[in-house]
């Protein structure tokens, strides 16, 4: 089994699916000769040709829009948006068309496209290269929003996204692209969408996170272990639709929950999870549900970004206060 980092895992998943399904094609800015600015599509144009790996003009709205058109006509486009700060022009197409085509045509036309983008802060990138807009897409009925947290999950979830009959927004934590390697069997096995992963079992508190924040969350779980707190960690993976059952089961077991995300706190996806728990598991709770999120500020330029991203210390403190709550 090859040891891959996350961006290589993305590359392998794309290559696997292109080799096995002729309808899959890639489009985006600089994804061809250059292999993408993060090299996610490295070598794919040389292997599959310019007609299936398309360097597009610099026009995000049209990238998403032509993907809708391609998908409706039986192709499976995987569109790359170079950085999430530039994903906002696609929202018109994703919200007004990709997410609704099936519903609008009563299933006559569908939109099996994937919109991929590197996402999140932590790599000292310029302005608009570090945002976390998952909640915006999650709010839209008809879309799937998937965020991997490791190379193996990136590989399996991206394959699933490409095979899914509906539009998927696939956000790849840039901070994890090259952070660590993992053994990934390039065997075409997908992982389930719409399902949380139990990343660590524990009995005292449930930590819920996704994407790059799984790093700090798992580190916090290790630190808490030293203090005698046994944390269970859930990787949400598919933000929308949310596998709330797995989260509720865990919270019913532990009685405590801390939700961690890198997007700003207000109207972040953590609020949704907290609301589900409040509605459906309130009487299992031994302490109020806590959120550890980025502050409600513009992602700062690089000098302050480490103070923006929720730290292990912040998570540990939130868990301590949850532990006191009984």
């Amino acid at each position, binding site marked *: 089994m090859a040891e891959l980092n996350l961006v290589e895992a993305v590359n392998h998943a794309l290559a696997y699916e292109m080799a096995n399904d002729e309808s899959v094609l890639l489009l985006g*800015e*600089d994804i*061809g*000769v*250059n*292999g993408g*600015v993060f090299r996610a599509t490295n070598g794919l144009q040389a292997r599959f040709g310019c007609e299936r790996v398309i*360097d597009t*003009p*610099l*026009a*995000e*709205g*049209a990238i998403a829009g032509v993907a809708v058109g391609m998908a409706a006509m039986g192709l499976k486009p995987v569109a790359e948006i170079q950085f999430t*700060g*530039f994903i906002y*022009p696609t929202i018109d197409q994703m919200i007004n068309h990709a997410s609704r085509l099936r519903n609008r045509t009563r299933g006559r036309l569908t939109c099996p496209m994937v919109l991929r983008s590197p996402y999140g802060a932590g790599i*000292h*990138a*310029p*302005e*608009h*290269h570090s945002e976390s807009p998952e909640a915006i897409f999650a709010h839209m009925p008809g879309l799937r929003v998937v965020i991997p947290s490791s190379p193996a999950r990136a590989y399996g979830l991206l394959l699933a996204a490409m095979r899914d009959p509906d539009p998927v927004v696939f956000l790849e934590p840039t901070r994890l692209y090259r952070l660590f390697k993992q053994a990934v069997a390039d065997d075409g096995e997908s992982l389930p969408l719409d399902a949380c992963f139990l990343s660590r079992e524990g009995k005292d508190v449930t930590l819920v996170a996704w994407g790059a924040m799984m790093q700090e969350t798992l580190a916090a779980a290790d630190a808490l272990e030293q203090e005698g707190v046994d944390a269970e960690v859930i990787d949400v993976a598919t933000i929308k639709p949310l596998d709330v059952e797995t989260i509720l089961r865990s919270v019913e077991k532990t009685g405590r929950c801390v939700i961690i995300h890198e997007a700003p*706190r207000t109207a972040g996806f953590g609020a949704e999870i907290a609301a589900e728990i409040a509605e459906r598991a309130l009487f299992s709770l031994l302490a109020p549900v806590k959120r550890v999120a980025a*502050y*409600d*500020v*513009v992602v*700062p*330029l*690089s*000098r*302050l*970004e*480490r*103070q*923006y*991203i929720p*730290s*292990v*210390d*912040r998570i540990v403190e939130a868990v301590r206060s949850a532990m006191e709550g009984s």
Partner: protein
Amino acid sequence: MGIHTSVDPETDTVRFLSPEGALCRPIPSSIGDELLVMLYRAMTRTRIFDGKAVALQRTGQLGTFASALGQEAVGVGAAAAMQARDVLAPSYRDHGAQFLRGMTMAECLLYWGGDERGSDFAGPRLDFPNCVPVATQIAHAVGAAYAFKLRREDRVVLTFIGDGGTSNGGFYEALNMAGVWKTPAVIVINNNGWAISTPCARECAAASLAQKSVAVGIEGRQVDGNDVVAVYDTVRQAIEKARAGQGPTLIEALTYRLGDHTTADDATRYRDPELVRREWTREPIARLRAYLTRKGAWSQHKEDALQRECLEEVGQAVNAYLGAQPADCNAMFDHLYAALPASYSYQRDMARRFSPRNGGGHG
């Protein structure tokens, strides 16, 4: 004939200086040697700054940086044609123009070094900050120009966009409004041949980008963007026209990006080095130097002095940048709203508590 119906790159490209620095046609008498020397100095200053900024990035002292190497004539020529009271709406590679407007080198370094204070220009207080989302600045320029027109102010807005940026919907939408409203805006396309790895021909199938003006009913011009005289003179005319209430102009300046797209890019992956070598024979600084030297308006002695002067200025800017006290975590909150809403105090307190300065954990 009113508006141009097409721009033919073969015949309509404005140029005064050939790549060898010979005169292709007479330089307007309004452009004296003093002005040419000023333009030369400004381009040299920009190039020396760029070299230093790239070196700082390579040694881990600066974040990602977008150099203007080879394109100095576009920013310098255009900004030199502006008045102080005009407004610049730059993209992210226009520090050549911004320096002439009064943005300091230290501010530029601060910005690329990851500190928002770099966009709080001490000099051009009304100029827009760098605009990173491609093509969104054109609408700002048109809106700003509308404000000037509405208030009958004698001001013009100048904005830059790259060749890749003209593929973006935002470019067309704003250009169209500029045409309908006849706003005093000058839109300069900095056509350096590349949008990261995408060559201009993969961005657009038209014979020129200046032609994009035709569909929106405004005048389009194409200039040799490595000839600072051509850029200056064409932009000056467009600014005068805009100031006289005769509406916007789209100017395509043909230049070449001699460096990587940014320090995060490696142009050897997609670009033939032979082409780059050829483009080095057309670059704007040597071209003007050859002309000025032949005229006796420039000399090796002056060149040496200028190099020293620029190196010293850049050195001082680097010291100011490196010596700047880092902002503390309050900076994330200070300028979010005019007054920080009361509900934020909890978050700001938490940020302070977890700030390394206050003994908190890393971040």
